[in-house]
């Protein structure tokens, strides 16, 4: 018998027999034949479990029961399964969950298409006792930064057996997050990671299991943070990993080398506005707040100001920023892109931070957290979490879908975690607003800066497309929070030619790779507007 393509590995410990029977049925119902299934019984107290497996193994030679002599828990049991596996890929299936009939064939199709794929993951949902499906998790395409914030790849994970063995399989000491630890280690070395945007796995929400309530297993989140910390240490990325506001979500606090020179570039015309009942010079407050919330000293603030900017504003900027201030006078007609390009070319830093003048920084260490991820060479741009003055979300990453350029989480309350924690963890995004973003200088020059043919709208969208075209990731950084006092009532005049220019370069966007819309199988109707994909799941 030649080695099968898939080795399904299932550690078994005392599942309800009818539940296990459902799981077995879901495997037997596969519309793909080339698999073996290794069920590792971890000394289940009831013989009925083993009897059921033996019965099926007797009927189907592809099914094998490995009986452990001692109870070794999930890690040991899973590793026994990996050891026994003969297939090219390991398929990780829990003893109470269900595969869709096309789960294996969908994976086989992708493997045939990419012979260098080392890791495949797909979408999932949950199944309750009644067999109802709910809580569909439509996942982003491969997002290494997001994997640090949460174990989002989860089920169904299919990994090349050789790679799993090379990285040492599951590790003791990470119980409850052993799958996250393995995914991080496989992700580090994988030549290619493929996301299958189809639900191939129904996760059974049995009370007390992790899928229903992660609080049931607090040790799991401690192990998870440790796994992520190990991962950062292995990659040599100086950071501290802590618990996020929800179990299973991790906060990554990076360290920025104090020697890194940072240039914050702010375009302004020196306007003042009424904020929370008092009048303020917007750019001055932006500069004051940005300086008050960072300890990074090697910093310059390049303010590109239009001719009508009042003298008073420049004087107050000098008072606020002292010798960190570089003033650049801009005398040509208004063009946001040109102003930013002029400012960035004048800047002396290795890292550029784009900042609007109508913001106020909220979070401590914002600059460090925004800039530090750029130390990873394949991160090309980072962005922030922005709120309106009324504490609702203005921006948490762009999404480009269904012909539109969207702020998908707009209008959620500030406290919201976002769908599947999207607001509270760092993650990859199709784009971020240039109202607050950071980029390496070399990237900026290589991609040609902001497109000056787009003086008002979509210049950041175009910039983001260029960054990704350049082969770099864009990372939304949850810990960088600012107010953005953009008027929410004002409808910015967007011209067709602006949209046409962006579409002309990059084509019509259909599905966002990082914020997939609901119901991919039933094409989303045209909902229009920026709020279409906002999913209030706070």
């Amino acid at each position: 018998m030649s080695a099968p393509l898939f080795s399904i590995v299932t550690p078994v410990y005392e599942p309800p027999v009818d539940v296990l029977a459902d799981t077995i049925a879901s495997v037997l119902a596969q519309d793909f034949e080339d698999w073996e299934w290794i069920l590792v019984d971890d000394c289940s107290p009831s013989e009925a479990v083993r009897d059921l497996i033996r019965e099926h193994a007797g009927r189907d030679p592809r099914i094998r029961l490995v009986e452990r002599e001692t109870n070794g828990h999930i890690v040991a049991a899973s590793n026994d399964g990996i050891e026994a596996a003969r297939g090219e890929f390991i398929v990780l299936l829990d003893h109470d969950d269900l595969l869709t009939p096309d789960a294996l064939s969908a994976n086989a199709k992708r493997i045939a298409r990419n012979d260098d794929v080392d890791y495949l993951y797909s979408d999932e949902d949950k199944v309750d006792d009644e067999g109802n499906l709910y809580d569909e998790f439509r996942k982003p395409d491969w997002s290494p930064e997001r994997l640090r914030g949460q174990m989002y790849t989860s089920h169904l994970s299919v990994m090349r057996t050789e790679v799993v063995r090379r990285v040492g399989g599951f590790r003791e000491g990470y119980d409850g997050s052993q799958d996250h630890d393995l995914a991080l280690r496989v992700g580090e070395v994988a030549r290619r990671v493929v996301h299958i945007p189809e639900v191939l796995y129904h996760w059974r929400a049995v009370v007390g299991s992790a899928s229903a309530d992660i609080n049931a297993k607090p040790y799991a989140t401690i192990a998870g943070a440790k796994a992520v910390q190990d991962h950062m240490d292995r990659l040599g990325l100086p950071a501290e990993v802590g618990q996020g506001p929800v179990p299973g979500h991790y906060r990554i606090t990076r360290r920025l080398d104090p020697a890194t020179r940072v240039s914050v570039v702010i375009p302004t015309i020196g306007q003042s506005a009424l904020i929370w009942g008092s009048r303020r010079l917007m750019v001055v407050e932006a500069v004051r707040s940005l300086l008050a919330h960072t300890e990074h000293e090697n910093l310059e603030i390049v303010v590109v100001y239009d001719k009508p900017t009042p003298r008073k504003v420049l004087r107050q900027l000098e008072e606020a920023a002292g010798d960190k201030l570089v003033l650049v006078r801009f005398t040509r007609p208004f063009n946001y892109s040109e102003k930013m390009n002029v400012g960035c070319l004048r800047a002396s830093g290795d890292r550029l931070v784009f900042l609007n003048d109508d913001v106020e920084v909220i979070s401590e260490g914002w600059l460090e957290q925004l800039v530090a991820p750029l130390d990873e060479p394949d991160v090309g741009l980072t962005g922030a979490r922005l709120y309106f003055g009324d504490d609702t979300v203005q921006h948490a990453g762009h999404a480009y879908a269904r012909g539109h350029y969207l702020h998908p989480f707009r209008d959620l309350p500030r406290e919201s975690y976002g769908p599947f924690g999207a607001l509270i963890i760092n993650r990859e995004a199709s784009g971020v607003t240039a109202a607050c973003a950071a980029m390496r200088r070399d990237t900026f020059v290589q991609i040609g800066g902001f497109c000056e043919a787009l003086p008002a709208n979509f210049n950041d969208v175009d910039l983001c497309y260029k960054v990704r075209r350049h082969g770099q990731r864009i990372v939304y950084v949850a810990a960088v929070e600012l107010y953005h006092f953009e008027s929410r009532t004002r409808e910015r005049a967007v011209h067709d030619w602006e949209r046409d220019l962006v579409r002309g370069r990059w084509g019509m966007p259909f599905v966002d790779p990082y914020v997939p819309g609901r119901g991919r199988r039933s094409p989303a109707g045209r909902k229009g507007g920026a709020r279409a994909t906002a999913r209030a799941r706070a």
Partner: protein
Amino acid sequence: MSEGTRSEDYSGTYYNDAHLGGYDNYTWDNEEWRAFFHSLADRVVAIANPRSVLDVGCARGLFVQALAARGVEASGIDISEHAIASAHADVRDRLRVASATAPLGGRYDLVTFIEVIEHMSPADAQLALDNITAATDLVLFSSSPGDHDEPTHINTRPTAQWAAWFAERGFFRRTDVDLSFLSPWAVLFERGELTLRTLTQRYEQQFAVVNTELMEKRQALLESHRRISSLNDQLESGVSGKVAEQAALVRQWEAEVLEARHQLLTTRDHVVGTEAEVARLTRDNERLRGDLARAKKQLGNVRGRLKQMRTRMGRLERRNRKLADEAAALRRRPSFARRAARKALGR
């Protein structure tokens, strides 16, 4: 009172270590020393034309040998036994070991006393002056007023001091003779009964020359100094002007570089955008070609079906016609019921 030096102080080491300055190997065989002393002898003969000369402190007698070569009745004394013993054979007889602190014996037209007295203790020096002035009326004298790193220079004095001691013995400087080829401080002393007037006049003449030179040099120095300041000023103002000019130029260049970089940036954006557009158009093109191929295939299918339909329609039409004909034929022939009725009614 400090001690004088002794014969042992002038062993081979003294000569070999080149304390005498100038050339190595202080012997008659050394061409350079020989040439030096021949030249000195020529000068001395030309100045004083002596018939007899005693060289006090003659060392290896090189000067004595050079004078003898010119027919001068020359001899020498030295306290260094090593020096006399190592003298050249041709001159050895003219030399003896003796000190100038003892009477010299005999009279000489000229006594040369070159770079010796500073090696003697002050008391010995006075004795030597006494003995020399007793033996001649003319003394060629030279004594370094400095050069204190030579260990045997134990009694250096300013030339004025030696001149005063000579004057005490009735010897005065010959101001008409310039011995600066020998050393800056060399003096030809001659016994003379000079009046104060003559002496004053001699020294005034010397003083006048020196004084005039000094004045002229001071003036020249002042002028040089002024010239340097004025050049300095010119240089500085020129430089600061140049610097300002260069700075303006640098600013201009900086602006140009910035402008060029800006152009490069926008050009790059244009290129990146165009590439993206080409890629997008290529994708669109591929998609449209796919659509076209599908549409063509569909068209083919539709045509085939159309043909089938036509064939079927032709068939149906023919059948239709046939049925219609049959129907018409039937209509022309009255029905069975009608025919029966007609028969029954007799019509």
